[in-house]
């Protein structure tokens, strides 16, 4: 197995867990069966809610799983940043250089794009001229279009003359700003979560989960990456001696059947001896059709 870099999990607002680095997001999705929820506005498409951008928000159980597996570490991102911003400019140079480098690249991408559009525009103007000449021949007047294009060309030339500052960049992560700090100072413990044994079992069997709110449960459970599969279960985790009202089983079973899913509930059976790990029992409820 190749050694992959540990994913950085940002703890914000006390007990919320986010991941900002796309490499980390992809690696935990590919290697650990965790897709979590994209929650951010996509700067390319900021007026839609169909597909969202970074960061992803992880559940506490998912965080624990990743940390226990040695695949991630958690930092108190506020403490980390307050320290980093308080440092001298020299210490921040790596980050500032990264920003500057990206700004140059962005300017080049922008120029390249502009040139492409200009060429496209020239093509259009040529085509329009041809058209106009043709129309003139046909006895029509096409003055407006010629005026418009000349005006625009002038404007463009003016813009080029001005020496513009480089475009600004907002990096997605502060990787180069906080580099080297986090492993010592701000790494935080992940508290135990009552759902953890259940979640871990599902994850170990290759199931992906998303928040269960859509179907009124703790989890929606998918037999693989939700990109490709429909959810099989809406799932709840209970304590071994937690009392479940029958009405809850009936309503969840009914709801699950209505959306072609089974209602799954699971619980960790306490181990006979403290050294053993408890087994997780699973039960599935479906409408019987009678």
């Amino acid at each position, binding site marked *: 197995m190749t050694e992959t870099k540990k994913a950085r999990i940002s703890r914000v607002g006390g007990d919320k867990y986010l991941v900002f680095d796309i490499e980390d997001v992809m690696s935990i999705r590919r290697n650990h069966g965790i897709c979590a929820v994209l929650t951010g506005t996509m700067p390319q498409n900021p007026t839609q809610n169909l597909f969202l951008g970074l960061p992803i928000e992880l559940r506490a159980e998912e965080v624990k799983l990743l940390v226990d597996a040695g695949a991630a570490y958690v930092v108190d991102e506020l403490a980390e940043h307050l320290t980093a911003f308080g440092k001298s400019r020299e210490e921040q140079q790596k980050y500032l250089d990264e920003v500057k480098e990206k700004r140059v690249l962005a300017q080049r991408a922008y120029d390249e794009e502009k040139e492409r559009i200009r060429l496209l525009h020239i093509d259009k103007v040529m085509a329009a001229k041809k058209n106009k000449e043709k129309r003139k021949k046909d006895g029509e007047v096409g003055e407006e279009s010629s005026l418009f294009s000349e005006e625009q060309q002038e404007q463009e030339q003016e813009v080029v003359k001005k020496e513009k500052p480089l475009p600004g960049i907002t990096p997605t992560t502060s990787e180069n700003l906080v580099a080297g700090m986090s492993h010592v100072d701000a790494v935080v413990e992940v508290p135990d979560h009552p759902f953890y044994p259940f979640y871990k079992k599902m994850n170990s069997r290759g199931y992906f989960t998303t928040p269960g709110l859509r179907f009124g449960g703790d989890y929606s459970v998918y037999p693989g990456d939700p990109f490709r599969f429909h959810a*099989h279960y809406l799932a709840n985790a209970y304590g*071994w001696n937690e009392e479940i009202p*029958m009405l809850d089983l009936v309503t969840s079973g*009914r709801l699950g059947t209505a959306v072609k899913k089974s209602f799954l509930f699971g619980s960790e059976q306490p181990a006979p001896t403290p050294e053993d790990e408890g087994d997780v029992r699973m*039960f599935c409820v479906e409408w019987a059709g009678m």
Partner: protein
Amino acid sequence: MCNDGQQRSMKEEGTGGRGSRASESQLSHTTQHHNQNITITMAFTQPLDALAKIVLDNLEYQHDWTEVYIHTQSNLTRPLIYGLPPKRLYIHPDEQVETIKAEKDRNDRIPQEPENEWVLPLHLSEKWTPAQFAAVFDAIKPHPPSSDVVQETDNIPWMAWRGSKRGKRILLATVQDDSTVTYYWLHDGLVKPRQN
């Protein structure tokens, strides 16, 4: 656990009419069928017997089940029911796939004979813990006692689902105060949903 309505129906027992008929039938069932390895205990409280009876009647008269029996067992905290539904009640999605394959090969439909099923009578107002459900599953075999277990042939995959591949499942029969009974499958373990 049970409400006043059921308490009252218990008191009516033995005073003739419906109650006594049902209680007689329960008695005969238990004596006829479970004298091998199962001891009849009198530990059951009366409301639970009444609950079982409501479900038993509902299965027989509303859902046309046959050979319906009340099943008691020392390691069960309440009586279960088992019986034969008029048509097959559960087909695992994988069995369905294998059946379709087999039907294609033999160019003929495979008849779906009903299977004996377990039933767990419950009242809607009850609360059960995972530990309790686990105890029920741990106490039973996949096939109810009267089932003719199919002699499975390994080279007929769809048949194995009636034999060794059958998982533990039990019908939760949830009784409401007005004697409405709703039926939900409870499977032991992860069982993927049926697609139809």
